[in-house]
């Protein structure tokens, strides 16, 4: 599905150069459910940027499917994001002035789908996350869990092959977190590759395996089934 080979990324801060990712190798198969863990400053968000084609890297290779993602033009990058990747964020990032339905339909707007058609499809996806009755509500009228489900419906509507979730439960209580992770597992079962960036060991425990980052390096992959979540937390 996706493969990172010796990816390096530097940030130039004044005269200095910050080595953020060091020879990162990541291999995620089709249909895998993977967690990426690491302390802040470990390079998690940079890795997410690169995986989400929101940022370029300095050396190495990033293959998404059969495509080498490198030095793409902004428009090509936008097209790949739109077709291949669905994003889920910690703070949901719904547009506050759009209804749940319009929010879900937004990726289809950028695919050039007509308003009527994309609202129809968006309704189906809202139904899948159990929010059909909330279609005409604004995000401000919804609970955190509901907002995240709207965001997930929005991530799914473009039929992506990869879901990138950045701390999807970070702003939710534990019960709601459980529900959202249930939904993630469900998505995973439909054959979509899911990558979750988290610092919550319980969330990581729900995935198949965990990739750990420390100081821009991958610490080694473990089969989630073989690792104790609490042990994982202290590693």
């Amino acid at each position, binding site marked *: 599905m996706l493969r990172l080979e010796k990816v390096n990324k530097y940030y130039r801060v004044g005269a200095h150069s910050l080595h953020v990712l060091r020879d990162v190798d990541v291999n995620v198969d089709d249909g895998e459910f993977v967690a990426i863990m690491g302390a802040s400053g470990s390079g998690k*968000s940079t890795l*997410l*940027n690169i995986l*989400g084609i*929101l*940022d370029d890297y300095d050396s190495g290779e990033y293959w998404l499917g059969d495509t080498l993602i490198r030095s793409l033009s*902004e*428009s090509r990058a*936008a*097209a790949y*994001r*739109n*077709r291949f990747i669905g*994003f889920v*964020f*910690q*703070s949901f*990032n*719904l*547009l506050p*002035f*759009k209804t749940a339905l*319009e929010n879900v339909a*937004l*990726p289809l*707007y*950028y*695919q050039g789908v*007509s*308003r009527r058609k994309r609202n129809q499809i968006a309704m189906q996806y809202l139904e899948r996350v159990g929010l059909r009755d909330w279609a005409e509500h604004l995000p401000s009228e919804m609970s955190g869990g509901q907002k995240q489900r709207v965001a997930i419906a*929005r991530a799914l509507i*473009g039929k992506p092959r990869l879901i990138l979730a*950045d701390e999807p439960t970070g702003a939710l209580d534990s019960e709601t977190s459980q529900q959202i992770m249930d939904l993630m597992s469900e998505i995973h079962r439909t054959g979509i590759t899911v990558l979750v960036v988290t610092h919550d060991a319980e969330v990581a425990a729900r995935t198949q395996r965990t990739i750990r980052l420390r100081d821009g390096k991958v610490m080694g992959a473990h089969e989630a089934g073989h690792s104790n979540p609490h042990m994982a937390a202290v590693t």
Partner: protein
Amino acid sequence: MSPFLLVGLVVLLGVAAVVIYLTIALARMIGIGVLQWRDLISLDRWQEVFITIGRNKLRTALTTISVAWGIFVLVFLLGLGQGLDNGLRKNFARDATNGVWVMANKTSVAHGGYDVGRRVQFNNADYDATKKVKGIDHITGTHFIGGRGWGSMVTKRGNKANSFSVNAVHADAFNLSAHEIVAGRFLSESDIANKRKSVVIGRPVSQFLFEGANPIGEWIVVHNVPFQVVGVYSDPGGSDEERQMYIPVSTAQLAFNGADKLGSLSFTVGDAGPEEAKLIIDQVVAQLSDHHNFDPTDRQAVRVHNNVEQFERFKKLFWMISAFVLVIGLGTLAAGVVGVSNIMMIAVKERTKEIGVRKALGATPRSIIFMIIQESVFLTGVAGLLGLAGGVGLCGLLAKLDNDFILNPGIDLSTGIAATVFLVVAGALAGYFPARAAARVNPVHTLRDQ
């Protein structure tokens, strides 16, 4: 450096700067493929813009006010400038623009053995001599009845009597005025030659004495002498110019005991420019000083009113006013456009998150740029039209006021269309730089910020 040149230079520099800015921005927009015709007619895109505008009412209101104000001031100033111009031209329309008036007065310099303060008196010989000066195409002498300048005379018909200015002139006096004959004719050469008791009266005079009846051929009494009405005139200068009468200079000299005296000489100089006109005037004054023994450099002995020079001065004044108004108006408008650019910039900052989300969901930089520009164009367009309507409306109100200085203020259609086109372009430009900033938003950075 003359002020005209300076103003012209400033305007030219301003226009050049705008053109350069426009070219660069347009080239960039085309370069990244921002400008595409099908986007403009996409209903979906417009709906997206309307929704965003509708959800940000305060911002929309602020933007609208700033541009509407700019356009309002521009249109109003242009309209006012036009009105002033019209008003001045109308005031000037009283007399021939190539006319020269030479009036006899008192000497202020001793000359040829004569003391200061001697009164100069023109006569018919001066008229004949001046008439021969090359470059003069129409000439009239004016006899001041009873020695006074523009004397009013009691004029009667039956039991109606009133006082009107009476001008005793030659037939060419018509060419020195802006009069139009509404009935009959003006005084003719033969009226002068035969010392006929003919009179040409202004429209209000006719109205007063005849109350709408046909005055041509009727007799009226001017200063106890009967005159026959041969014509009625009107004048664009209004009632001051119309409450007057014209009688043959020869008749007046005879009837009112004026010998061969003339109080002033007036003539037109054809299409002579200011310099040529000055040469002609110098020649006329030289002749007069010869005849009447005064110093030709004595500015008091004869008073010269030169419309050629005056008109030239007025034309420059008009030009100055127009240029001034244009500079101020464009400046105000530029401030408005910069204001929109500013507000759009703030809007982009405020919407960083939204733009980040859109980009994460697959919005291309092009679509982001176009979205911002479209909003900007729409806002400036609507605001501009509001300002345009306001400005035109105020000019309309002003036109209703009866004012000597401002006449029919307003802008013509082409100016209105130009302003509208300018607004749309300005809106696109105002939106472009904020839009480019928006397109550079990095989604993950903005979306992770809590």
